[in-house]
C-alpha cells in the first residue's frame, strides 16, 4: 500500500503476479514450510481453497491413525495467511498475533481442506476465521480464529 519498500521485495512481486495468474503453487512453494507440509492453494469450482495433501509424516497418532493436532493448526493458519496475501493488497507475509484452534474431530489419514474468511480487515489488523474438513464440509474437523498484523507501524 503506502510502503515503498514493497516494490523491491521479491515476495511482494511474486504475490502480485500470482494474484493475476492464479498459479498459486508458485507462491505456496516459495514458502519452505508450506512446501514441506504439502499445503497448497487450489481453485475448486471457482472457490479458492487450501489443501494439505496427506503424507505419513503428518501423523500424530500412529495407532488410530490420526493427523497431528499441530498439522491442523498449521493448515488453518496457512489458509488464513494465503487468504490475506491473495485477497487483500498486503505485500508482506502477515504476522500472526494470536491463534485459537478448536479441535472438533480427529483428522483421518487423508487430504484435508480449509477455507478462510476475513471477518474484519482494518489498516493494521485483520481478523480471520478458518474451517478445516475432510470428506464432508458440513462436518468440520477443526476451526480457528486468528488475528494478524498486516504492516509495521
Amino acid at each position: 500500500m503506502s510502503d515503498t519498500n514493497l516494490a523491491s521485495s521479491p515476495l511482494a512481486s511474486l504475490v502480485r503476479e500470482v494474484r493475476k495468474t492464479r498459479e498459486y503453487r508458485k507462491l505456496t512453494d516459495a514458502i519452505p514450510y508450506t512446501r514441506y507440509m504439502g499445503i497448497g492453494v487450489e481453485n475448486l469450482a471457482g472457490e479458492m481453497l487450501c489443501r494439505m495433501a496427506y503424507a505419513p509424516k503428518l501423523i500424530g497418532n500412529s495407532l488410530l491413525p490420526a493427523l497431528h493436532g499441530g498439522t491442523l493448526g498449521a493448515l488453518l493458519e496457512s489458509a488464513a495467511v494465503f487468504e490475506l496475501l491473495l485477497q487483500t493488497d498486503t505485500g508482506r507475509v502477515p504476522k500472526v498475533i494470536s491463534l485459537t484452534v478448536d479441535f472438533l474431530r480427529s483428522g483421518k489419514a487423508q487430504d484435508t481442506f480449509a477455507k478462510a474468511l476475513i471477518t474484519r480487515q482494518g489498516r493494521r489488523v485483520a481478523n480471520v476465521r478458518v474451517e478445516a474438513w475432510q470428506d464432508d464440509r458440513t462436518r468440520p474437523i477443526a476451526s480457528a480464529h486468528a488475528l494478524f498484523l498486516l504492516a509495521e507501524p
Partner: protein
Amino acid sequence: MSDFNLPEDKAGRLARCSVFYTDVVPHNHALGLKLVDIGPAEATVELPYADFLVGNPETGVLAGGAVTTLIDASCGSAVFLKLGRFAPLVTLDLRIDYLRPAQPGNTLTCVAECYRMTRQVAFVRALVHQGDTANPVASAQGTFMKLEE
C-alpha cells in the same frame, strides 16, 4: 494396562516419554522435536531451527504452524506426566499468543505445565522462549480430554 504406567524415577520417565518424539509420533520426529526435561507435570521440548520450517522467506522467521506443533506436543506430554501414565488424549482447544518474533537460527524451547486435572479434562499452559524465559516468544493455553473413564 499396567505397562502404560510411567516409571517412578525421573530418568525412566524421561526415556518413556521420549519415545513420543523419536518413534511413536511421526510428525514430532519429522520436525525434529526433542524432549529435553520433565517435571511432575511439566515437559520441556526443543524445536531446533531448520530451513524447511521457515514461514517467511524474507526474514527467515519460522512458520507459526511449526510453533503450534511444538506447543501441542509439549502440552500432551505434560498431561501424561501429570497423569503418571499414558492414556488416549485429544486436544480440545489451543490458544497461542505470539509475544515477539522468534529469532531466526535459534532453537525454540517450549515449557508446558498441566496445572489442573479433573476426571476428564486437563488444563495446560505453555511458554515458548529462545533461552531467556523472561522474554518469551509465545504463550499458550490449552485443554485436553481423556478418552477413557
